[in-house]
């Protein structure tokens, strides 16, 4: 999807259309989660601190994200993809791989199409048409013989693009691209490549033995995979129905906060949110992790594995609370409170769609399940602020209301 969160906002609010839009924490200490293409012209990027984005583009309109809406739209997109082929592997909320190799005949063009790329292109066009017509959003599709090249192709004509790279063209198309297109080459690795005079894919392909030796000593086995990618090879399969790996929620505070009571209220709010998302996806989690970033940008995580998979706040929150309290016990500051936090977050891992049933299903569990079901229904109808646990109140500072 193109600038996914920002596009959804522009779709739903006409006053945002054609204007630079930043989605993310509105406090100025938050992070950009999406920037519209208008904002990208100013250099704004997702994952950039909001303050920096606002300096780059002061006229940008800032929107607080509506993540419930984004996941709902994401599911609509995945449903469209699944109507073409059952082999859909979602990679993130707005990206997925689709293996069409089994359905090419079904989409035959009638033209000679020995390698099936004609049918592939047809499917891509239909996907784009349906996403536009049914959801009012644009997306970019890449068609290729494997996952890596397809991903590169989808990025080539962004936004609202379609790009087909046949296997025999892959080498030529990849050659001039920066080394950073290779999966796993981040800014850090790219720097190491640059130091050895390699900036593009072609340069790595043609590197001499001495350079390769130097690279091998730095990257080891990873280099083999990159070299294969340089030639357009990638033998990873599309894993349909691949489970979501984790669900998380975090918040950067307007002002570093060391009040344990307030932090716990924030954590409760986040726990309610992630548990609701977990239940929407019909999953259970086995591990609860909290993420803590102090004012000096030191980030730590603490995890705990549950006795049995859970999706209820009543099971998840006490664990998260204990983790935060344990951290707090080791990080008290004189005068009360804990080391002030810049960021606090919770994430759920080891997700499973299997539920081991209990012999002695407790009355208490049944009550929690009912409470969850009712509050899910209320949230679905009236929005996420409509109902929450008492413990999540007091999540904002007393002076916040004055400032707004």
């Amino acid at each position, binding site marked *: 999807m193109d600038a996914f969160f920002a596009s959804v906002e522009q779709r739903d609010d006409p006053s945002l259309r054609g204007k630079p839009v930043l989605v993310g924490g509105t406090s100025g200490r938050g992070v950009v989660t999406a920037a519209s293409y208008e904002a990208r012209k100013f250099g704004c990027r997702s994952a950039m601190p909001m303050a920096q984005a606002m300096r780059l583009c002061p006229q940008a309109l800032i929107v607080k994200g509506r993540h419930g809406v984004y996941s709902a739209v994401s599911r609509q997109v995945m449903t469209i993809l699944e109507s073409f082929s059952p082999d859909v592997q979602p990679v993130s909320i707005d990206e997925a791989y689709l293996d069409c190799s089994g359905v090419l005949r079904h989409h035959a063009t009638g033209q000679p199409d020995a390698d099936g790329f004609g049918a592939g292109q047809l499917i891509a066009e239909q996907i784009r048409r349906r996403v536009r017509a049914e959801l009012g959003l644009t997306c970019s599709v890449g068609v290729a013989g494997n996952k890596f090249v397809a991903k590169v192709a989808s990025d080539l004509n962004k936004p609202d693009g379609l790009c087909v790279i046949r296997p025999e063209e892959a080498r030529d198309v990849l050659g001039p691209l920066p080394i950073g297109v290779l999966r796993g080459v981040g800014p850090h690795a790219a720097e190491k490549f640059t130091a050895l005079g390699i900036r593009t894919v072609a340069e790595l392909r043609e590197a001499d033995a001495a350079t390769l030796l130097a690279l091998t000593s730095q990257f080891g086995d990873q280099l083999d995979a990159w070299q294969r990618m340089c030639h357009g090879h990638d033998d990873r399969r599309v*894993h349909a129905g691949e489970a979501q790996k984790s669900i998380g929620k975090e918040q950067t505070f307007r002002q570093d906060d060391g009040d344990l009571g307030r932090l716990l209220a924030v954590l409760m709010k986040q726990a309610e949110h992630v548990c609701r998302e977990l239940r929407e996806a019909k999953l259970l989690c086995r591990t609860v992790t909290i993420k803590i970033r102090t004012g000096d940008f030191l980030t730590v995580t603490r995890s705990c594995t549950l006795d049995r998979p859970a999706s209820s706040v009543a099971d998840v929150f006490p664990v998260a609370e204990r983790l935060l309290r344990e951290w707090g016990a080791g990080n008290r500051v004189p005068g009360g409170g804990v080391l002030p936090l810049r960021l606090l977050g919770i994430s759920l891992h080891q*997700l499973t*769609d*299997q539920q*081991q049933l209990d012999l*002695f299903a407790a009355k208490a569990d049944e009550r929690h399940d009912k409470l969850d079901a009712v509050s899910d229904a209320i949230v679905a109808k009236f929005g996420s602020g409509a109902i929450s646990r008492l413990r999540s109140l007091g999540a904002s500072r007393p002076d916040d209301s004055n400032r707004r």
Partner: protein
Amino acid sequence: MKVICERAALLDAVNQVAAVVPQRSPSPALSCLKLAASRQGNYGQLVISGSDAETSLQLTIMQVDIGEPGVAVVPAHKLAQILSAVDQSDPTVTLELDGETCRIKGARSRFTIYTFPAADFPPLPDFAATVSGAAPQPARAVFAHQAGALKRVIERTEFASARETSRYAINGVLFKRDGKKLEMVATDGRRLALCRSSVKAGDKEEGPTQCIVPKKALSLFGKLVKDPLSTVQVAITDNRAFFAMLDVPAEDFKPGKTAPQPRAVLSSLLVEGSFPPYEDVIPKDGDRKITILTEELARAVRQASVLTNEESRGVRMAFGARSKTLKLSSRAPEMGESEIECSLADFIGDDIEISFNPQFIAEALRTLDESEVLLELKQPNRPGVFKVGTDFLYVVMPVNLPA
């Protein structure tokens, strides 16, 4: 104290008792063993005791020659290490207390370790006094059982108990004795094992007795049984259970004052709290009755569990009535899938498909020596029951798999 011991017998006993003792303890004397050498008439004996505040174990070895009676308190795990390191060529080893140190002599090696004052070693609960009623906590029930038979009942239940306690006290095995009937039950909330056995009437009976014995004590029990036909005497007080191993055939055992001195006494504090209402969850309405060869099912379940993982534990089991086959299928995301076939000895009822954690089934089958098991099922979201005769049943809750 000076004792010459048979090396192998001593090592074996020290290892068993040391298994009870914590590696680290706030008070060093608590991670020690107490060795007490004495002469009883013409015989010498060495009593080795160890404890972890909850469980305690006392073993008596007779393969000793007492030079000088006495008591030594020595670090348990260090002593075990020394005894296994000492020369194998010499069949004996000599322990000698000299002031505050204990010398351990083999053929070509000599070790000296520091001991602790005997007074620092906590007193262990006294089995004889408990049975006679002289102890502050007298036994409310005492009965004898064939050691091998009790071992079997324990093995068929203990594995199903929980490691941690929950709102119910399930980190132990329920021990229920009523007249000649003994019933043990263990559960971790997802499966439940129940095994029955009949005991000789006890020498002290005050109506039905019921208690929860911790997992740790029961897991030590099996190793204490040397001769399955010998006797184990069980005593239960308000907060403790005792298992005393007697070198007397269970057939010949007569309760009363003539009972010989036990070779081993295992005792444990009981688990406090209430056991869940387990009788309510044993289904009685399973209308699919399936008979399977134990080994055939064990093989199939083992094979199917290869392609499962933490996030995907369930194995789908499709029972076909007409074909009398069971098809198991498992799937580990991003890894692969398996399909296993298993033939059924008999099947009464309609086809059914249900999913279980294969580990739960495998653990139960491992304890069985009978060639066939009966499985009763009702619905995919209702528990299944494995039965062997009338003395063993095992309830397993299914896993809800996505459609």
